[in-house]
C-alpha cells in the first residue's frame, strides 16, 4: 500500500544528523509504523497458545462476524474523519435503520426491497442534513451530530411508543402487527457461505470485506478521495485550489449515514426483530476502531485499512479474552485502554499532525 511506501522514503531520507540520533530516530519510525501490526500478530500468537480452540477457522470467522457491523460503521466514520469532521450520529442512525426496516416489513407489511431502499434513503438523508448543518449553518461537527444522535434516539421510539418491533406485537392503535421479516432480508444476517468448511463464512463478513475494499479504493486511488484528504489537512488551501469543499464534506457525511444504515440492517437481519435495546455500543466501538486505525502503519491519519485493522484488533482481543474466561464487564475497560495506547502512538510518537479530532 502506498502509505507505507511513502513513509518509507521519508524515513530513509530523514536528515542524516548524528549517527546515533539517526538510528534511534529510525527505531522510533519502525516502532510507529509496525508497532500496531506487531502487537496484533503477538496477540494472535499469544491467544493461540493460551486459549484452546482460538486458532481455528471457526474462531477466526466468529471474530470477523463480531466486528462486521462495527467495522462497517467505522468505515463510514472514517470518511468524516478524512474531511476533518466527526460523526457522532452513526450509532443512532444504525439503530434507527434497524427499527425502520422492522417497521416497514412487520407493521407496514412491505417487501425486503422496500425496507432496504427506505433504510438507505434514510441514511443518506440524515447524512445530508448533518452535512448541511455543518457546512451551511456552521454548527460545529461534534455538536451537530450529537444533536442528530439525540434526535434519532428519540425518533425511532415514537412510532411504536417505545416498544421493540416483532411479528404479533400490539400496535398503539390496538391492532396486531401481522407482517413478518422477509426470509431474504433475514438471509443478510444469517446466511453462511461454504468456504473450505461448510457454512463457514457469514454474509455480514462478506459485506465488511467488500465495503472495506471499496472504501479503500475510493480514498486511496480516486481523485475524490485525494481531495477529501486535502480538505482534512488544510481546508482553506483546498478551497483555494478550486475544490468544492462543502460538497465533499456533505458527501462524506452521506457516506457515513449510508454505511451506518447498512450496519443497522445487518443488525436487524441478525436479530430478526427491531430491538429497542440493541446497538448501544455501536458508536463507541466504531469510533474506537477508526481512531485505532490512525496508528496502523504510522499513517497518523484516518484510513480505511487502518480502520479495518482497528476493528479486527478489538475483535481479536475480546474474543481471546472471552475464551480465556475474562468476565464480560472487563471488555469496555480493555477497549478503552487499547484506544488510549493507540492515540498515544499516533499523536505523541509520530510527531506528525493528524487530521480530524
Amino acid at each position, binding site marked *: 500500500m502506498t502509505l507505507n511506501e511513502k513513509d518509507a522514503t521519508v524515513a530513509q531520507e530523514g536528515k542524516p544528523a548524528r549517527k546515533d540520533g539517526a538510528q534511534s530516530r529510525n527505531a522510533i519510525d519502525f516502532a510507529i509504523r509496525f508497532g500496531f501490526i506487531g502487537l496484533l500478530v503477538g496477540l494472535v500468537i499469544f491467544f493461540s497458545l493460551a486459549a484452546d480452540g482460538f486458532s481455528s477457522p471457526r474462531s477466526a470467522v466468529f471474530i470477523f462476524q463480531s466486528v462486521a457491523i462495527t467495522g462497517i460503521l467505522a468505515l463510514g466514520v472514517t470518511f468524516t474523519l478524512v474531511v476533518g469532521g466527526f460523526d457522532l450520529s452513526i450509532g443512532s442512525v444504525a439503530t434507527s435503520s434497524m427499527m425502520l426496516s422492522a417497521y416497514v416489513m412487520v407493521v407496514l407489511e412491505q417487501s425486503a426491497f422496500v425496507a432496504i431502499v427506505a433504510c438507505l434513503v434514510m441514511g443518506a438523508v440524515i447524512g445530508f442534513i448533518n452535512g448541511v448543518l455543518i457546512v451551511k449553518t456552521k454548527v460545529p461537527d461534534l455538536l451537530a451530530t450529537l444533536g442528530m444522535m439525540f434526535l434519532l434516539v428519540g425518533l425511532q421510539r415514537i412510532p411504536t411508543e417505545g416498544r421493540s418491533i416483532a411479528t404479533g406485537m400490539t400496535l398503539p392503535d390496538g391492532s396486531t402487527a401481522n407482517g413478518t421479516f422477509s426470509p431474504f432480508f433475514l438471509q443478510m444476517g444469517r446466511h453462511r457461505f461454504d468456504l473450505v468448511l461448510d457454512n463457514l463464512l457469514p454474509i455480514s463478513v462478506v459485506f465488511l470485506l467488500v465495503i472495506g475494499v471499496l472504501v479503500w479504493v475510493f480514498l486511496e486511488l*480516486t*481523485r475524490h478521495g*485525494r481531495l477529501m484528504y*486535502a480538505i482534512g*489537512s488544510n481546508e482553506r*488551501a483546498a478551497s*483555494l*485550489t478550486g475544490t468544492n469543499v462543502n460538497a465533499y464534506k456533505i458527501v462524506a457525511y452521506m457516506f457515513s449515514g449510508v454505511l451506518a444504515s447498512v450496519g443497522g440492517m445487518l443488525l436487524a437481519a441478525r436479530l430478526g426483530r427491531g430491538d429497542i435495546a440493541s446497538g448501544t455500543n455501536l458508536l463507541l466501538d466504531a469510533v474506537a476502531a477508526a481512531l485505532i486505525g490512525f496508528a496502523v502503519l504510522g499513517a497518523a491519519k484516518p484510513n480505511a485499512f487502518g480502520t479495518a485493522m482497528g476493528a479486527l484488533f478489538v475483535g481479536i482481543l475480546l474474543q481471546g479474552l472471552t475464551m480465556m474466561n475474562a468476565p464480560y464487564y472487563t471488555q469496555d475497560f480493555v477497549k478503552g485502554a487499547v484506544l488510549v495506547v493507540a492515540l498515544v502512538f499516533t499523536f505523541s510518537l509520530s510527531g506528525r499532525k493528524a487530521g480530524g479530532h
Partner: protein
Amino acid sequence: MHEAACRIDRVEKAFGDNRVLKDITLDLPAGTVTVLMGANGAGKSTLVKILSGVHSKDSGTIRLSGSEFRPETPADAIRAGIVTVHQNINDGVIPDLDVASNLMIDRLAENSYGFLLKRSKLFKAAEDIARRMDLPVNVRRPVSDYSIADRQLIAIARALSHDPKLLILDEPTSSLSASEAERLFSYIERMRAEGVAVLYISHRMSDIRRIADRIVSMRDGEISGVFEGESLDYEGAVNAMLGHRMTDVGIVVPEQGKAVAELKDIRLIPTAKSFSLTLRENEIVVVTGLLGSGKTALAQALFGLHPVHAGSIRLDGQEFRPKSPGEAVARGVFMSPKDRANNAVIRDFDITRNMTVPFLRRYAGLSFVNRGAERAKAREMIDALSIVCQSERDDISTLSGGNQQKVMLARWLAQRCRLLVLDEPFQGVDIRARRDIGHKIRETAGNRATLVMVAELDEALEIADRIIVFSEHAVVAEFRNENVNPNDILTAVAGFAAANQTVQAA
C-alpha cells in the same frame, strides 16, 4: 524631549538560524509617541513580544526608567510598567463578560485577589477606572454590547489602569473608522501629556501623520532609519522600511499581446473609488501598496472569493463574474494566495500531491488517479523550477520556505491559464529562490496575463513590466518599469495613502 522611559541596547534574537533581531539599539522617550514601521518579517512584532515578556531576548539589555528589565512572563512586563494592546481586539477583551470584569481581569488573575469574587467592589473599582479614563460605558453591561472602538478603548483603559511607563499599541486602528480612530488619538495624546512613552505600530500613513512624534523604520531585523524633528520625513521613513538596494535585473519590457482581462470602473468596496485596469498577454503587472491597501481584495475578487462592489470584468471579451475559485479556475484564472502555510500548503501531502491538487482531473481516468502521470509531471516541474529535494515524493514539510513556495507556484504553472494572479509570491523566501521564482514568472509569461501583488518595492522592480500603486482599494499611480525612479513610486505609496485618508476623515 524627555528622558528615555525605555532604553533598548544591543538586543539580539534568533529563532534557530534565523536572526530576527540584529543589534537593536533604541530609546523610547517619555511623553513621546514613537511610530514603528516595518514590512512583514522586519522583526517589529518580535521586538514587541520581547518588550511585553512573551519572548526572551538572546543578548543585550533593556532598561526601564534606568533599572534593568528582564521579564519572564507577560505578567512581569505589566507589573514593570510595559503594557501592550494587541492588534486583534478580541485578544484584548472577553466579549461575554461585563465591562467591569474586563477592566479588572488581570487583577482577578493575581493570586492576592482571593478566592471569591466580590462583585460590588469589582464594579466600584471598575467605575473608578472608567471615570478616570473618561470611558462612556456602563461597567455592568457585557462587552459584546459595545462597538469595536469601545472595546479597543476598554482594552486600553485596562492597560492604562496599571499606570504604565511604556504603552505599546499594535495596529490599533486597523478595524476602526475615522471618527473612532480620532477618539483613540485623543486618548493617546492624553497619555503623552501624562509622560507615558508610547510605541505605536502602524502602516496607515494618516495615523502616522496624525500622531507620530518620531518614526522608527525597521527592515530585516535592523533599525533602518530614525526620523524626528519639527517636520517628519514620511517618505524617508517609508523608503527606509521598504528599502531598495537597487538590484539591476535589466527588465526589458517586451511587446505586449492582446488584452486578456479588462477591469472597468471597478469598486472593490463601497467606500473605495473606482478604477479601470487592462491586463495583457506577455505582460507582468505588479500591484504594490501598503498593508491593507486592497491588493489582496483585488486578487480575491478575480478568483471568485468575493464579488466586486461595482464595475465589470471581461475575460477575453466575455463577462467574468466568478462565484467560486472552482469557476475561476475553469475559466483559466489561477491564483496563488499569500501566506502559504495557511492558504496553500497541504501539510499531510508530499510534493507531487501538493502540486496536482487543482488539476487532479487531468491525471485521472474514471476518477482513478494515474500516479505515474502525476509523478512525471511533478518531476518535470521540479526540474523546471530547480526545486531542491530528494525526490518528488518528499513530504512538503521537509522543504525550505523558498522551495515550498516554488511547489505552490508549480501547482499553478503546471497548466496553461489566461490570467495568473500571484499574491505575495516572495513571502518568506530567500533571495536565491526569489530570483528563481521571478525568472520563472517572466519566462512563462508569454501566453497569459500576469498580475503579481507585492509590498516590497525591490520585488516589484525585479519582475514587473508595469507597476500599479494601490491605496484605499483603488489604483492611484502607474509606472512603466523602464528607467523608473523608485522614489517616485515611494512617493505614490506613501503620499496617496495619506492624502486619501485625510479626505476621508474630513
